[in-house]
């Protein structure tokens, strides 16, 4: 049940979207369709305060993300403040525009972990999806640099119909780059990805083949690289526990300082988000209307309210429920118990050739 009155456990992680600026234009970008402008971004001092408040409230990990976080010249300083506050710092980068000197400066600032996105194992295809010529080459170079500096490295590959046949090649690429961990994440269809759904959605047969392939790759690479997979949930029977439950594990701060339960939460109309400009982070986590709206289980309707899985998956994803049904309080239609479940297969089948709508272009 949603607790009120100071008994709410603190989040473990904070995703800091330092900026929405990015040289790449991936058609599945998790940033909102309405990108926040540079002029609205929080300054260094405010981000530093957010880092300190996060550490005080019990947050363990800071994910420095964007857009491309290195688009901000104060990334090193923010990293240093986070590190000095005792936080574990994770850089989520496209690698484009991050040279060896910058990587060294970030390592000196106390960076713990680097996560580099790749769009494909085939350079030309990777650059086409990113909408950026020469990006692949820069990613490979930065991965080598991170490894050379002794930083832990994750390679993050987003999977869709154009690269789903090359899961094995992408894992092999991650191993050759010295990564200890690779994320094989099927596109999650919100925002830009929703707009590009027909251009990205793999077939059920391809999605199932990829899931089986990942199982085989885990056995093949046992002890050499960890493969974490985000499942293709349009083809699932049970929904994912999105974010580990709304307002339970993590929070997201946008470039302008609004605090969200997840990066897509602004797609749900009527939610009231508070800003770090106006409130301390701890107060936002415990009391802001957007966080209390779907925290716990008391907001649920049937079939969720009496479901034995309600504390496991928390009704699935609120943003997906809204995107598919127009009501954020119903069960995620990915769930086979949802009366709207039939719609999911229908939406997944809206196949056909569609050109990419590139992010921000």
């Amino acid at each position, binding site marked *: 049940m949603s607790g009120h009155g100071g008994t709410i*456990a*603190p989040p*473990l992680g904070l995703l800091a979207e330092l900026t929405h600026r990015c040289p790449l234009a991936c058609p599945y970008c998790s940033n909102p369709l309405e990108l926040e402008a540079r002029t609205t971004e929080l300054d260094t001092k405010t981000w530093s305060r957010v880092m300190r408040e996060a550490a005080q*409230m*019990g947050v*363990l*990990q800071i994910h420095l993300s964007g857009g491309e976080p290195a688009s901000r010249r104060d990334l090193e300083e923010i990293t240093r403040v986070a590190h000095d506050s*005792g936080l*574990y710092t*994770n850089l989520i980068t496209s690698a484009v525009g991050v040279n060896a000197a910058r990587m060294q400066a970030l390592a000196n600032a106390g960076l*713990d*972990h680097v*996560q580099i996105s790749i769009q494909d194992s085939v350079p030309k295809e990777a650059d086409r999806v990113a909408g950026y010529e020469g990006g692949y080459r820069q990613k490979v170079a930065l991965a080598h640099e991170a490894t050379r500096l*002794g*930083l*832990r490295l*994750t390679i993050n590959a987003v999977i869709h119909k154009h690269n789903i046949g090359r899961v094995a090649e992408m894992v092999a690429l991650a*191993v*050759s780059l*010295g990564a*200890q*961990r690779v*994320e094989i994440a099927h596109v999650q269809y919100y925002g830009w990805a929703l707009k590009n759904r027909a251009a990205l959605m793999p077939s059920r047969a391809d999605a199932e083949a990829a899931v089986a392939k990942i199982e085989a790759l885990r056995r093949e690479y*046992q*002890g*050499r*690289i*960890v493969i*974490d997979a985000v499942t293709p949930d349009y083809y699932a029977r049970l929904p994912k526990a999105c974010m580990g439950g709304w307002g339970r594990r993590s929070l997201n701060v946008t470039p302008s300082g609004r605090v969200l339960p997840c990066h897509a939460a602004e797609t749900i109309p009527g939610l009231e988000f508070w800003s770090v400009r106006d409130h301390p982070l701890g107060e936002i986590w415990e009391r802001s209307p957007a966080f209390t709206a779907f925290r716990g289980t008391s907001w649920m309707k049937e079939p969720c309210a009496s479901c034995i899985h309600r504390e496991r998956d928390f009704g699935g994803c609120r943003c997906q429920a809204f995107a598919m049904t127009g009501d954020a309080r119903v069960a995620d239609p990915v769930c086979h118990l949802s009366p709207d479940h039939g719609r999911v297969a229908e939406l997944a089948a809206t196949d056909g050739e569609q050109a990419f709508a590139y992010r921000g272009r």
Partner: protein
Amino acid sequence: MSEAIKITPESKPMLPRGVRLTENPQQGWVLVAPERVFKADGIASVILKRCDGSVTIGQMADEFAAAYNAPRDRILSDIISLLQTLADKRLLDVAP
């Protein structure tokens, strides 16, 4: 390309950069790693605190057997089991 690590009594385990044992009032002892947080309660934190690359697992077992007045064989297998799990997740290195 790295090979899988096999943990033995002669291994000198060490937490690599990017895998940290930390304590805070809200969570207690936790091992913080890339996109992961593991509770490190009781004996786990005691073991992980010794993983600095200077001590073999055999030496740790000697030490803990004396300190906790417990059977060494059992302690040794517990340490190896914990550290092999972490090594398989690429969260542990061994010193040369």
